[in-house]
């Protein structure tokens, strides 16, 4: 089962449509079928989707910090320009 990594990344971005193709192994031994939709999505593409999710989360974390720093900088700039 070859998989397309670009497709995996697009799947992550296209969360709103919820029309995932689950190419992974959601039916391991048929015993513990995981009903949770989010977990099934993360399992897709032989569990590559979770790697894409992790990268997106790290990016969001860094961007949120940059936004905080940006806001503080704008405030300081205003203070300096008032003089």
């Amino acid at each position, binding site marked *: *089962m*070859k998989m397309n*990594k670009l497709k995996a990344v697009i799947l992550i971005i296209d969360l709103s449509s919820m029309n995932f193709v689950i190419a*992974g*192994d959601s*039916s*391991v*031994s*048929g*015993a*513990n079928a*995981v009903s*949770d939709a*989010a*977990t099934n999505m*993360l*399992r897709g*593409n*032989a*569990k*590559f989707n*979770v*790697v894409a*999710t*992790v*990268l997106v*989360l*790290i990016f969001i*974390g*860094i961007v949120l*910090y940059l936004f905080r*720093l940006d806001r*503080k*900088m704008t405030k*300081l700039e205003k*203070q*300096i320009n008032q003089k």
Partner: protein
Amino acid sequence: MQSNSTGYKIIKIGSIVLILYVLIGGLFLPLKTGITGVNNGQLKSNELQTFSVDLYNPGSGFVAEKVILKHKNLVFQSQENQYNEAGYLNTKIKVVLGDTQHSQLFDVFVFGSSNVSPKQWMYFPDAVWIEKSKSDTGASNKIALSNLTSLVKQDVQSGFPNRPILNESIRNLLYHVPMWFSMMFLLLLSVIFAIKYLMKNHLRDDLWSESFIKIGILNGILGCVTGSSWASITWESWWPSDDPKLNGVAIGMFMYLAYLILRTSLKDPYQRARISSVYAILIYPIFMALIAIMPKLSADTLHPGSGGTVGFNKYDLDNTLRLFFYPAVIGWILFFLWISILRYRFETIKNKQIERDENE
């Protein structure tokens, strides 16, 4: 830290180059051949039954020489294996458990090769359930383990190792784990600068310490959310509460959040610097004990390198992963070090501006 010094340039450029290397290599290098799952894995004994094994990246022309079901010393070999180019290996097997054995969960072992992969064993744990039939009496048709070539997987194919359960998610080793290494490194730096402040009473050392702790907390939060999503598919829980490492980290993060609250509650800068420096020095060893020593003492934990084992052993890292794991750790550490330095530089400018306003 001067913004044009060589060290600063090494941190900036080095982190970008290493992270790019780790992102490109870590995402595009293929995974070795492996098993991702088993379909129709509930079989009856004493009858010829069919189940199929999902193979991942097997390459074209895969030929399975042997398919084995194994539970401890109970080993059964399949009668017929048919590989479908869609990635399925259809297997026919007749298991006779015999008088002495009960219904069991079996591990699946596949021995095969293709145009791209050499002959090797692949393995998937607890994949097939054999239900004992009423007609299943008499002697078992199990085979002796010595009839098989050793059940050790030979890693000769290039690419990341394809471990059962982990599969593609093994790449997270390059993104989730360095968050924790980076956090521990930055918090260690915060202790060093806190000690430096207590010795010399320069407020800038306190500012360094605070910057490292803030970015360390950012690392900790990132480590928690990435680890949580990884755990949801490999450990079947978003927060496996019986893992001592997770609980230790949760307590530790609250101790560092208390550091931030402590700072905001004190107004005099020298008093604030002194008290928070002492607090930062005190909580670091407690935090390390919670995330590094307690998991080792506990009997069972999910994280590798815990519960009696020492660090990463040969089952966690192979040579291909090592080629990316160490650059990943260094790259992410340098990257978050860079962000801490940016934060320190910004706060310095802000403090200078406040001083200037007060003098006017």
